[in-house]
């Protein structure tokens, strides 16, 4: 199979802050350097793109020396945290912005689904928008006409095809938009997070279509998503980016695990110092630890044992808080939400939380999760206002234990959690 995309030493520099102040001076300086045949003075400066720290420099490298190549028919998953440069890379590939240095060589027609529904005009009907959107994406009128029925069918909007799209429900709108894009026939397709939209049925339809496009029709797909399950399901190879650089390229399974471990479980900043949180901080979580039923601290949890999650917090407001809700969302290593622990479903909303309270304890009997790594998002609110909400606040590891009291566990790969159950033979008593 031949190489269809070749990216060589690709870099992209952005200028931070207010665009208009100082740009004229910098423009003049750049121009002055260029007419004397010197190098652009602003290309040497610039720091890594780390969004958690405020940059000291005005210039930032969103991409720095990226090189890779993609072969025909490959589905390349691009993974990385927010700000890793994924979207910038796709923008350059889809030619909506140009690189600062380096080059990209492409063989075949390229089309992007950076965001579906581009150019949809609310006043135009579904039919008119299909043609407009298709043309924006590079199809000719004839091509759209040929696929018209298929597209309408895929989107499931036949009845409303001559209604202005401003009267569409948001679901219909997205389905129509995606359908137009899905029936494009480019050799290379760029997809960015479109799967975050639509209901579950439509999402699986989209995933199926993408699989179809790559496996059966031999098209090349570049896929960016934060949904690791989707990446693993679809992609044949991956590229893992961080702060504008390539960390690794290769086997998608290994990359997703590497990514998930770096982004969640080895978060070195302690909970009290985390800044990526939202809420009014009337309650601020500061630390988390785990205990067994005898009050001993645990470094990892054991399947089948009694476990207590202890959340320590600070109260930054002196008043007594009312109607306090606490929730913990537990994700597996692939980012799938496994379960949610919260005091609303247990009917234990704390009516009052006074100043003497310093921690919250959650008791779980017979801990049901299978061995593996998990991440927890914590949430708290008082009187309907969010107090503290930290995504992936902490992680924990579960090691195998005696859940069933038999010394046995279900085999690895047979599920993610355990359920207490009994078997029984029923005799035919009439015999």
């Amino acid at each position, binding site marked *: *199979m*031949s*190489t269809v995309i*070749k990216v060589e030493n690709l870099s992209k520099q*952005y*200028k931070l802050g207010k*665009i*208009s102040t100082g*740009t004229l001076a910098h423009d003049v300086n750049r121009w002055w350097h260029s007419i004397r045949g010197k190098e652009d003075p602003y290309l040497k400066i610039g720091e890594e793109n780390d969004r958690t720290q405020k940059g000291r420099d005005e210039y930032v490298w969103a991409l720095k020396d990226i090189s890779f*190549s993609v072969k025909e028919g490959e589905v390349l998953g691009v993974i990385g945290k927010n700000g890793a440069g994924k979207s910038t890379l796709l*923008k*350059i*590939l*889809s*030619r*909506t*912005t*140009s*690189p*600062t*240095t*380096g*080059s*990209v*060589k*492409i*063989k*075949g*027609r*390229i*089309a*992007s689904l*950076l*965001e579906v529904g*581009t*150019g949809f*005009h609310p*006043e*135009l009907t579904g039919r*008119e928008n299909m*043609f*407009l959107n298709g*043309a*924006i*994406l*590079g199809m*000719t*009128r004839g091509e759209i006409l040929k696929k018209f029925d298929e597209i309408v069918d895929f989107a499931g909007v036949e009845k409303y095809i001559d209604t*202005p799209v401003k009267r569409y429900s948001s679901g219909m709108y997205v389905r129509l938009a995606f359908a137009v894009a899905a029936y494009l026939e480019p050799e290379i397709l760029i997809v960015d997070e479109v799967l975050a939209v639509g209901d579950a049925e439509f999402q699986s339809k989209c995933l199926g279509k993408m699989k179809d496009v790559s496996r059966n029709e031999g098209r090349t797909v570049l896929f960016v998503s934060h949904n690791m399950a989707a990446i693993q399901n679809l992609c044949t190879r991956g590229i893992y980016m961080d702060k504008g650089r390539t960390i690794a390229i290769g086997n998608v399974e290994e990359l997703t695990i590497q990514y998930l471990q770096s982004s969640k479980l080895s978060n070195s900043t302690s909970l009290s110092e985390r800044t990526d949180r939202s809420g009014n901080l009337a309650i601020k979580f500061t630390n988390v630890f785990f205990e067994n039923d005898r009050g001993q601290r645990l470094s990892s949890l054991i399947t089948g044992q009694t476990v207590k999650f202890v959340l320590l917090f600070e109260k930054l407001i002196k008043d007594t808080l009312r109607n306090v809700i606490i929730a913990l969302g537990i994700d597996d290593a692939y980012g799938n939400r496994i379960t949610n622990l919260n005091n609303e479903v247990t009917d234990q909303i704390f009516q009052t939380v006074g100043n003497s309270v310093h921690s919250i304890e959650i008791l779980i009997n017979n801990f049901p999760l299978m061995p593996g790594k998990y991440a927890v998002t914590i949430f708290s609110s008082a009187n309907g206002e969010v107090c503290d909400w930290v995504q992936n606040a902490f992680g924990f590891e579960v090691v195998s234990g005696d859940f069933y009291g038999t010394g046995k566990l279900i085999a690895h790969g047979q599920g993610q959690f355990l359920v207490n159950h009994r078997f029984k033979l029923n005799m035919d008593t009439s015999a």
Partner: protein
Amino acid sequence: MDNKNGKEWDLEITARSKALEFNFKEIWRYRDLMLLFVKRDFIAQYKQTILGPVWHVIQPVLTTVMYLLIFNRIARIPTDGINPTLFYLSGITMWSYFSQCLTHTANTFIGNSSIFGKVYFPRMVLPISVVISNLIRLGIQFALLFIAIVWFDFHGYPLTLSFLWLLLPVLVALIGCIGLGLGIIISSLTTKYRDLSVLLTFGVQIGMYATPIVYPLSYVKGKGYEWIIGMNPLTPLLEVYRYILFGKGTFDLYSVMYTLGFTVFILFAGVMIFNKVEKSFMDTV
């Protein structure tokens, strides 16, 4: 990689852009898109209005009535012996074509940044589609003007139909090119300096008074500010236009050559600046 030797790439994306590249082939490939943009502009403009495209006719009629009152009755500015109604209507038709071409193409980057940010297509498609949709509008308004000319032919102001009328498309093309050229320059510069879009509104208003629309060029002859109006490349075009329609106008070869030169220059400069900006404007917009 398996094929190192002499591989043919369909597309190469690099930092540098060619200054004077005008890819006709690519734009031609996107002709369907161009027409759909024209259609979109037309449909969207008059959706949920009762009169719809009739507004294209009402606007010049009302403006003509207003000008008749202000410039003819109150200010008593002469019209070169041309019937005042026809004088104003013809001027308004041409000026609104120019000013619409200019202001709408000047909005290319800012107004379409949401589309430009997501998909690639030759950016030039949009300003060209603006000019095309204005041509259609001009066609409608010109039909109105022609009807008025014929009507006045029956009411004492004779129609002067000649072969010169065949030159009208050339005139329209020149005015469209100036509007397009200036428009894409302004649109390129507004991506960085937004002040220009505010200035443009003023500029178009002032521009109308610096062009012989509500007065003939002969009226300013010998006045101190004549050179300002003479500098305006649109002036000779408007005078030629009136000469074709009504047989009266003030122009010479030099002024027409000046306008031709200006048009070529502004179009080249426009394409050059546009090409430079279209690659990177998403980072500054």
